[in-house]
C-alpha cells in the first residue's frame, strides 16, 4: 500500500463516479415537452436520476439502521452533550482551511478575516478548538465550501444526487465536496504518503458520526412531518444550500406560477378573497 492511487479518498471518488455511471442507466422517464405541466414539474425537480437516488436513500437509511444509529446512540450515551459539542467544535476548527480557502475564492475578504481570527482564537484560548470562544467574542461561525464557491462563480447546480453516508447533494456540490476533502482538508492528508487505510476510515467515519448525529433530530422531524420524505428532503436541501450560497441574505419570494397571482400584484400570498374577486371581475364582459 504505497502507491498513492490506492488512496482510500481516491477510491471513494472512484466509487462515486461508478455510482454515477450506473445511475445513468436508471433515469426517470422524461415527459414529452408537449405535456407542459408534467414537463415543467420535471424541469423544476431537476432530478433525472430520481429512481436511482431513491434507492440510494434506502441504502443510506439501511446503513443508518445497522451501523450509524447504533454507533451514534453509544457515542451519545458515553459522551455527554458538552463533550460532543467540544468534538464538533474541534472538527470544525481543524477543517477551517476549507472555509478559509473558499472565503478567499469568493472574494469575501472580511469573512476570510473572521475565519482566520476564529481559527487563531479557538486553537489557542479555545484549547485546540474544543471551545468556540470566538463565537462569544462577536465572531460567529460560518461555513463555506467549493460547491458554494462554484455557485457564486455562476456554475449551475447540476442534477440532484443522493449518496449513501453523504446524503443529499448535486452534481456541483459533490464535485466541490471531493476537491474540498481530498485537496484542501489537511486532516485527510495525514499519513497519506503511507496510505494507512485505518486513518481514512477513522477520520471520515468519525466525521460521518459527528455530522449524522448533529443532523439527526432535524432530519427525524422533517421525516415525521412529511409524507414523501425523499421529495421533502430534496426540497429542504436545495433551500438550505441556496441560503448558504446567499450567505444568509433575506429569502426571496417563492417563485411565482402565473396562475397563483390572479390579481397581478406579484404576490403569491394575496388573500383568497382578493384573488377570487379579481377572477370574478376578470370574467365579467367589458
Amino acid at each position, binding site marked *: 500500500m504505497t502507491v498513492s492511487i490506492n488512496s482510500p479518498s481516491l477510491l471513494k471518488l472512484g466509487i462515486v463516479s461508478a455510482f454515477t455511471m450506473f445511475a445513468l442507466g436508471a433515469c426517470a422517464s422524461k415527459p414529452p415537452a408537449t405535456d407542459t405541466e408534467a414537463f415543467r414539474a420535471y424541469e423544476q425537480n431537476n432530478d433525472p436520476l430520481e429512481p436511482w437516488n431513491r434507492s440510494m436513500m434506502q441504502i443510506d437509511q439501511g446503513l443508518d439502521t445497522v451501523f450509524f444509529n447504533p454507533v451514534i446512540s453509544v457515542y451519545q450515551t458515553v459522551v455527554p452533550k458538552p463533550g460532543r459539542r467540544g468534538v464538533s467544535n474541534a472538527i470544525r476548527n481543524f477543517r477551517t482551511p476549507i472555509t478559509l480557502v473558499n472565503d478567499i475564492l469568493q472574494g469575501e475578504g472580511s469573512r476570510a478575516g473572521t475565519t482566520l481570527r476564529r481559527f487563531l482564537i479557538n486553537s489557542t484560548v479555545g484549547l485546540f478548538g474544543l471551545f468556540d470562544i470566538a463565537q462569544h467574542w462577536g465572531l460567529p461561525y460560518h461555513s463555506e465550501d467549493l460547491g458554494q464557491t462554484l455557485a457564486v462563480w455562476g456554475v449551475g447546480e447540476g442534477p440532484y444526487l443522493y449518496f449513501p453516508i453523504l446524503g443529499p447533494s448535486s452534481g456541483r456540490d459533490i464535485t466541490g465536496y471531493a476537491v474540498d476533502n481530498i485537496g484542501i482538508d489537511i486532516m485527510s492528508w495525514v499519513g497519506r504518503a503511507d496510505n494507512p487505510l485505518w486513518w481514512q476510515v477513522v477520520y471520515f467515519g468519525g466525521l460521518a458520526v459527528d455530522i449524522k448525529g448533529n443532523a439527526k433530530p432535524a432530519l427525524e422531524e422533517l421525516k415525521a412531518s412529511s409524507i414523501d420524505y425523499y421529495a421533502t428532503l430534496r*426540497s429542504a436541501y436545495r433551500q438550505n444550500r441556496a441560503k448558504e450560497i446567499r450567505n444568509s441574505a433575506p*429569502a426571496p419570494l417563492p417563485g411565482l406560477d402565473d396562475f397563483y397571482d390572479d390579481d397581478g400584484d406579484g404576490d403569491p400570498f394575496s388573500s383568497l378573497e382578493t384573488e377570487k374577486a379579481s377572477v370574478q371581475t376578470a370574467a365579467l364582459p367589458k
Partner: protein
Amino acid sequence: MMRTILFSALLIIGVAQANAAEATMKTDPTAFINHFSQVSIDDILNANIDTVEKTARFRTVFNDSFDIPAISRFVLGRAWRRASDSEKQDFLAVFEDVIVYTWSRRFKQYTGQTIKVLGTSPDGDTGTLVNSVIIDLAGQTISVQWRLRQRGEGLRIVDIIIEGISMVITYRQDYTSVIRQNGGIQGLLTELRKQAAETLPSKAP
C-alpha cells in the same frame, strides 16, 4: 363613591391600554411576532396542562395567526385550481390537523428557547418579512423568518422560513410529489388523513 369612580377610571385606562396594544398588534409586525411568541411560550409551552389541552390551545392560536386558505392554495398549487369545493374544504381541515399535530409533538422538546426579532423588511404586496432568531439556553441561534400579510382582521402569517427552508415550499414539493404518484388530490387526502390519525396526540405522556 370616590373609590368607585377611581376604580372605574382605572378600569377604563386599563381597557384602553389593552385595546391600544391589540390595535398595535394588528398592524405592527414586530409586536405581532412578539405577541405570538409570548402566547406560545407562556400559555402553551410553559403552561402546566397536558398535551391534549396544549394542542387545543395551539389550534386556536394557529387559526388566529395564520392565513390557512392562502397557505393551502400555495401548497397545493396546480391541484388547488382543479380541486372541487368539497376537496378544498377537506384539504383545509386535514392540513390544519396535520400542522397542529406536527407542532404539538414538538412541545415536549421545548427547553427554554426564546425568539428575538432582529428587524423587518417589506415583502410582497401588503406584507412584511420579519427576521428573527430562536436562541437556546446555550446561546446557539437558529434563523427564523416570518412572512406576514395584512388582512382585514389583522396580520397573518403565510410562511415560516427556518435556516432558509420555507415551510410552504417544502410542503408544496412534498405534496406535489404525492399527488403525482398517488393519482391526484384524493390520494393526497388519504395520506394526510392517515398521517393525522397517526400523530393525534393522546393524554398518555
